[in-house]
């Protein structure tokens, strides 16, 4: 089983991103459960959603406390919440940012980092900082756990229409292309 925690802010579509990713994974024959977090969600406030997938049926309908991957679709949410809380050893971080890798204080468990300047891409495509589909592209590029074709098919199945559909398809592709993937090599403690 692979567990993903998506961090964002209310209005950016973290829950919808979970739904699209779930559909894409089901198209690839996986079993998926996606649960949004429940709190005092409102526009701009930190929100999270959870997604787990497996080759076999998943029974637990619960939040995720020890993710294999943290997907941050907002550049500043890490200031408000500890996005590394409970991450597993060897975990993946997929982060929206315009900064270089050296500017990040990573948790020691993080082994792979995908960085994508999704805000700039979103402002270009949507004229607003809605980063969810861009960061799904970044997730696919960083982890290779879902194909771009399945994510495209999932977006086509969602409620996007006409111009909105085209924009989100562009967003997905540009997120995929613009992502830099870094493997973190740590020296053994002296």
């Amino acid at each position: 089983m692979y567990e993903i925690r998506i961090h964002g802010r209310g209005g950016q579509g973290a829950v919808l991103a979970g739904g699209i990713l779930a559909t894409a994974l089901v198209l690839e024959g996986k079993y998926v459960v996606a649960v949004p977090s429940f709190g005092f969600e409102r526009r701009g406030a930190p929100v999270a959603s959870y997604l787990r997938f497996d080759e076999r049926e998943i029974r637990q309908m619960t939040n995720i406390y020890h993710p294999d991957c943290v997907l941050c679709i907002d550049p500043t949410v890490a200031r408000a919440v500890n996005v590394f809380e409970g991450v597993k050893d060897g975990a993946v971080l997929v982060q929206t940012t315009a900064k270089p890798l050296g500017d990040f204080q990573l948790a020691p468990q993080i082994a792979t980092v995908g960085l994508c300047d999704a805000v700039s891409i979103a402002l270009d495509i949507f004229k607003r900082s809605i980063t969810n589909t861009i960061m799904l592209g970044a997730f696919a590029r960083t982890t290779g756990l879902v194909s771009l074709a399945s994510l495209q098919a999932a977006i086509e199945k969602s409620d996007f229409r006409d111009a909105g559909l085209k924009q989100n398809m562009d967003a997905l592709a540009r997120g995929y292309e613009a992502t830099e993937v870094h493997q973190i090599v740590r020296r053994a403690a002296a």
Partner: protein
Amino acid sequence: MSAILKPKSKLIVCDGNEAAAWAVSLADVDMVAVYPITPQSSLVEYLAKFIADGRLGAEIVDVEGEHSVLSVLQGACLAGARTYTASCGPGLAFMFEPYLRTPGLRLPLVMTIVTRDTLTPQSVWGGHQDAMSVREVGWVQMYCESVQEVLDTTIMAYRIAEHRDVMLPVNICHDGNYLSFGAARCELPDQGEVRDFLGAKDVNWHVALDPQRPMAVDPLTGGAGGPGPSTFVRYRKGQCSGMQNSLEVISEVHEDWGRRFGRYHAPLIESYRMEGADYAMITIGSMTGAAKDAVDEARARGEKVGLLKVKTYRPFPAQALADALAQVKAAGVVDRSVSFGWNCGPLFQDVIAAMYYAPRRIPAMSFIGGLAGADLTISHFERVIGRIKELARDGHAAETVWLNEKD
């Protein structure tokens, strides 16, 4: 549950609220009346969309409050319509007057309770307190574990409600938050096959608002003289019989569903890994998935624990539960709500009452968790299993354990 995808079925990803709306659409419902309330709102929004898209040929009435919701549906049902609504929490409370009256009218209404904890303390999140507060009113109540079970059970509810041995309204309860908004892979059955499964609508043969066969609906009965008292008793006894009959009908309908669609959900009580179990954990609703995973982990460590899931809560399958507990030395019941009168969970109270039907009495304990949206995880159930194991060993039951108190 096991399944091979039926050739005509479709695989979708949806949450429990959307699954319920799909079921209503497949069941050819004629009349939907709604008033939105968290966490039910998206369910009725899906219905409104399905109707606007022409997928469901029902009339939707967006009324001014839940009291009117059920009043509208009573009228529609008496006129021969297959009906549906969904509510929860404060909405259900406001609906109480017509809600109380529906079973006595023997109307086969189907209504989802997207369960929510009750006020106060102020909260908008899930918990079974709303549905549990109306458990003795005469509606059949079934609790679901998964998104797929929501979809399948909502369709089955119509066949149960309209069965001539039952003729009672049915609540399908699914957990606010974890099931209402939790999305999963889900199999959507074929419309034609669902029509064959449900058969012709049969809602008002016994009581009707119909100019072709005028009758007095719900005339005055009771009092202390004349034919009133005995008439009243006959109505009440009939209602109780309908409830008891539903146990068999629920079982038959689930069996037929399994035959036709390949998914066999346990109709009353599901026994999970109870073979050779020394003690049992009893669950209800969406918590069950994590609880089963905890049982698997405990079994892998050699612990002799099994699980019983209560699907049908009203009428309470007392004999089935007593039989299922016959071999174990102790039981623990996890409730997502509170019985204020007994200082324990309401399901716990039902379980110990059912044990009166068992050949011997075993120690039992009440656990309460998952209130107001709190998460119940595998580690909570590990704690529960550990405590029941102790109980099986020493027989000393403690006071109710509150699982999220120190989270």
